[in-house]
């Protein structure tokens, strides 16, 4: 069985003034025009992680791309449907902008990656499930290198309408998010952490995620996602919502916490409204 290491993580945060992620330094205007905003963000995150890891991307045939999104192409849907109702005209690139598989595909094309490629959509659990899928691909020896890229953009009016129906409290302030993470079967090239376990299932009524994971963390679990640090038996929750990118943000935070607080191992988890959960245990690899 192969081992899976986290080689690097990039998280893109919205600018405090505009509330949007700055992607212009990574995408050519021509490239941007062909993509919905959420695909632009995951492509920008992927290009940024490629820039700092040229060795990882040397042999594209061996690299798999798993994309993750919760909502998909809400901005294009909103704009183009209204335009169609008014004029009867549809852009030839409308289909390619709204199909969420393109989120993975455009990354594969831009970075010339020929391994397995698809998009995972499991709501707020999307990035956790995509990382788990990447781990499984490596563990089964089907792929050696995996890029997981995630993003969402709910800045349109339709996006807000969906959010209001989707969740009552969690996502009220959500705008956009994007992240990328590299999974590698080899440690030699350096790593931030190692994935040591994956967990997926559905929690029964009253059952906590800690009971399911067999972790003695007390019963306290607040919110749909978070981090549990094994050494100090500490939970970190109430982190800002990053939608389909949630888990990658949480993994980054967990690694940083280990680095500065002498922690060795942590769990990240994500729980849907229907109580489906996905969780990953991660061991910090010290410098």
């Amino acid at each position, binding site marked *: 069985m192969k081992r899976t290491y986290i080689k690097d993580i990039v998280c893109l945060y919205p600018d405090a003034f505009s509330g949007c992620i700055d992607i212009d330094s990574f995408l050519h205007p021509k490239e941007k025009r062909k993509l919905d905003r959420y695909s632009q963000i995951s492509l920008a995150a992927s290009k940024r992680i490629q820039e700092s890891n040229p060795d990882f991307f040397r042999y594209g045939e061996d690299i798999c791309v798993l994309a993750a999104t919760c909502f998909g192409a809400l901005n294009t849907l909103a704009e183009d449907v209204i335009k169609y109702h008014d004029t009867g005209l549809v852009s030839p690139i409308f*289909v390619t902008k709204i199909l*969420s*598989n393109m989120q993975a595909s455009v990354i594969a094309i831009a970075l010339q990656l020929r391994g397995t490629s698809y998009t995972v*959509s499991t709501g707020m659990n999307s990035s956790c499930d995509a990382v788990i899928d990447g781990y499984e691909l490596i563990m089964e020896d089907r792929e050696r290198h995996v890029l997981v890229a995630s993003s969402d953009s709910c800045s349109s009016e339709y996006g807000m309408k969906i959010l209001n129906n*989707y969740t009552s409290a969690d996502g009220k302030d959500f705008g956009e998010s994007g992240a990328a993470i590299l999974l590698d079967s080899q440690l030699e090239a350096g790593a931030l952490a190692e994935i040591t376990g994956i967990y*997926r*299932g*559905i929690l029964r009524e009253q059952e906590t995620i800690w009971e399911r994971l067999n972790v003695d963390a007390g019963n306290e679990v607040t919110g749909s996602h978070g981090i549990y640090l094994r050494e100090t038996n500490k939970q970190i929750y109430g982190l800002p919502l990053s939608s389909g990118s949630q888990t990658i943000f949480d993994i980054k935070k967990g690694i940083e916490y280990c680095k500065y607080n002498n922690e060795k191992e942590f769990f990240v988890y994500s729980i849907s409204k229907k109580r489906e959960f996905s969780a990953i245990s991660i061991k910090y690899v010290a410098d």
Partner: protein
Amino acid sequence: MTNRVFITGMGMISPLGDNVDLNWKNLLERKNHFVPYEIFMGKGRRKEEFYVGKVSCNSEEKKYSKLAEDVLIQAIHESGINPEKNLGRTALIIGSSLGNSEYIFNSITDESGELDLDEILPEVLAHKLAEKYFVNTTVMVINSACSSSSNAIGKAYRLIKNNRIDCAYVIGIDAVLSDMGLASFAALGVLSASESMRPFDVHHNGFILSEGSGALILQREDFIEEDHLSACTEIIGYGASCDAYHIVAPDLKGDGAALAMKMALKDAEIPSTTIDYINCHGTGTKLNDESEYNAMELIFDHMVHASSTKGMTGHLLGACGIAETIFSCLSMKHDLIPGTVNLMDPIKRSNINLLSEDIKTKVNIVMNNTFAFGGQNASLILKKWKGESI
């Protein structure tokens, strides 16, 4: 530890019919089920007409969720399982490219604010079905456009094979027939302007857009009820790749598609000479047909039968992989390869024997290929279960 993976139940709804048997019967009878559909092209402008493959569904609004659940019920029934009883670790995986397009497009201009998320976000539907049918492990939605459900089958197969789950409900579904859905594919220039498709024919004219769904129950060897063994097909290989070439056009050389086939053969640990029949993606567009043929030539240097069944179902998009997997299973069950409808003058004649007529022959191992917009390829290898002990 690795397990053998079997398909123990199938369900299917397409323009050809509302169940698996009817689909197979009408596929072989070659009855044309396509109907005209007029689409809005702008105020004051003439409506444009295309043929489409519609399913009979009594609820347009809930069509997407109904299509998914109805085929799942069919598959559960055929497999003889009882979801309420302990099936072991059970997963539900949906392959879909878009939700209910008509509902989505209307919801954007609808000002009521109430949205049925089952119809918009496939993951919401997946979570609902998982709860209703006692799923207790993985719940996932995979989107790789036209190869979505093939990748969903591949994912479920791997989970069972590697002993992470014992049983999987796999659903492939798409319902994109709407004015804007059709207008957007028409804008890409891939739709057939006539009432028929001509896959792999020199006069290929594009595809007819259809809606439909399919479901499979996948189980590991020791979880299969003895009474249902006769209905089994074994999944023995799965490969996936990406062309990394163009967002719409396939790589004409066929390298990416060939890579998926190569990986599937490697996974199955069989040589290409053992494949009896290839159920092709065969969309009837010039670029896909040529690229797919070239890809097959890269892998098969001996004579192999191949055909496309899309000419009869139309293009089911995210559901086509599962529908064609079902046809592949039936082809092995009946030792009959369905020919490609309207194939008069094949684009090429070589060792890839493109069949225009149905033939009766031993079919023990089938390769089923699907290739998507964006170059996402998936290849599955299925084997007839011949009664040997599992």
